[in-house]
């Protein structure tokens, strides 16, 4: 999911960076100082999600959960994910510095799209229905993310087109797992603390 430094062409890097700055700017505008602890703590939870490896046949996948993050945070997902990705580069060497913009957009933009798509569904009174929307959001975010990763690669040069084509099928299992996990997570939140998702965000 993380693209490394040096792979992408300059136009892709620049447009990624510009989009990321715009997204982060909107996110910061929508985030008060009062929300800082909430956003910080949620971003940490998603940081940890990427360390949950689930076995899948002979290999394993790790969770991304950007769909759920988007459902909860909306545009604020941009700054949250930017910081999370920056920490991942510095602490663990996942990704790179100059591609930070592209990586942020690839993960945060789907989150925002899912926010608008599932806004209504996730607030349904029935926990089951809301959970199904959660599953759609979880799986959908992975699809959009992988399409965007594929595009950033394909736009960076002819030689990456095949690789870009490989990205999509490689993400299908992650998509399925993520859908199930998001279903259960939303179901739990809906039964235990519905006001957490149903309350209007200021």
């Amino acid at each position, binding site marked *: 999911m993380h693209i490394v430094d040096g792979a992408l062409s300059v136009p892709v890097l620049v447009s990624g960076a510009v989009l990321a700055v715009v997204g982060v700017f909107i996110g910061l505008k929508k985030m008060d100082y009062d929300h800082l602890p909430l956003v910080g703590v949620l971003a940490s939870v998603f940081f940890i999600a990427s360390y949950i490896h689930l076995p899948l046949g002979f290999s394993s996948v790790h969770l991304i959960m950007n769909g759920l993050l988007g459902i909860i945070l909306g545009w604020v997902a941009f700054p949250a994910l930017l910081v999370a990705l920056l920490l991942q580069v510095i602490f663990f060497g996942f990704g790179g510095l100059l591609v930070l913009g592209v990586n942020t957009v690839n993960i945060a933009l789907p989150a925002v799209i899912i926010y608008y798509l599932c806004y209504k569904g996730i607030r349904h009174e029935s926990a089951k229905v809301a959970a199904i929307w959660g599953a759609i959001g979880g799986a959908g975010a992975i699809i959009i993310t992988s399409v965007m990763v594929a595009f950033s690669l394909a736009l960076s040069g002819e030689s990456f087109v095949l690789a870009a084509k490989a990205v999509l099928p490689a993400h299908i299992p992650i998509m399925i797992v993520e859908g199930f996990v998001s279903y259960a997570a939303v*179901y*739990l939140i809906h*039964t*235990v*603390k519905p006001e957490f998702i149903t309350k209007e965000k200021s």
Partner: protein
Amino acid sequence: MTYSNNPLIKIENLSYAYPRRGAVLKSINFTLHSNERVVINGDNGAGKTTLLHLIVGLKKAKQGDIIGFGEPCKTEKQFNQLRARAGLLFQDPDDQLFCPTVLEDVMFGPLNLGFTKQQAIDKSLQTLKKLGMQGFESRITHQLSGGEKRMITLASVLVMEPQVLILDEPTNALDEKAKMRLLNVLQGLPQAMIIISHDRAFSDQLATRQLHLQDGLLTEPSKSTVAVA
């Protein structure tokens, strides 16, 4: 008390150190026989929780042997079998309750052991009833009081029918009434137990043997402060 010949759990020369720290446990020896209730106390950070986690294999010891129910445990698979027979109650009940409703949480163990869903439900309801918690099955775990949470975690361990109960500070943050209730329940259980507790009154009433963990050594404090080794 007459000890049966086969100890339930036997620990030999167990040592443990966290990375970049001094040793937390230094060559611990310990045996648990059936019908025993051993209380271990010790300061904060003495390594009590670490010891319990080592026993059920949640952490792996660098040195020493753990023999559970007559069989030495080394691999994750062996420990997994041990865990089905030695139920561990965590220090903080919140860490243990992760399902939305009480019933689902209690069912989690039996489902892991391979029971069908219907069997798991039946077993769970029975266990809840035995602990006097009938009627709680559709309550939401997160909204229970501290004492109720403790009882549910106990149920979720007992439902797996362990032969040994391992309890990490079960009275933490419980009020007097909840403590008394827990004491009564525990005294009525047939299982052998290892219990960590800072609470004098509680442990005096429950223990058949008391041990003290200090400086990485497990000692018998009451009689002559001699290392059990």
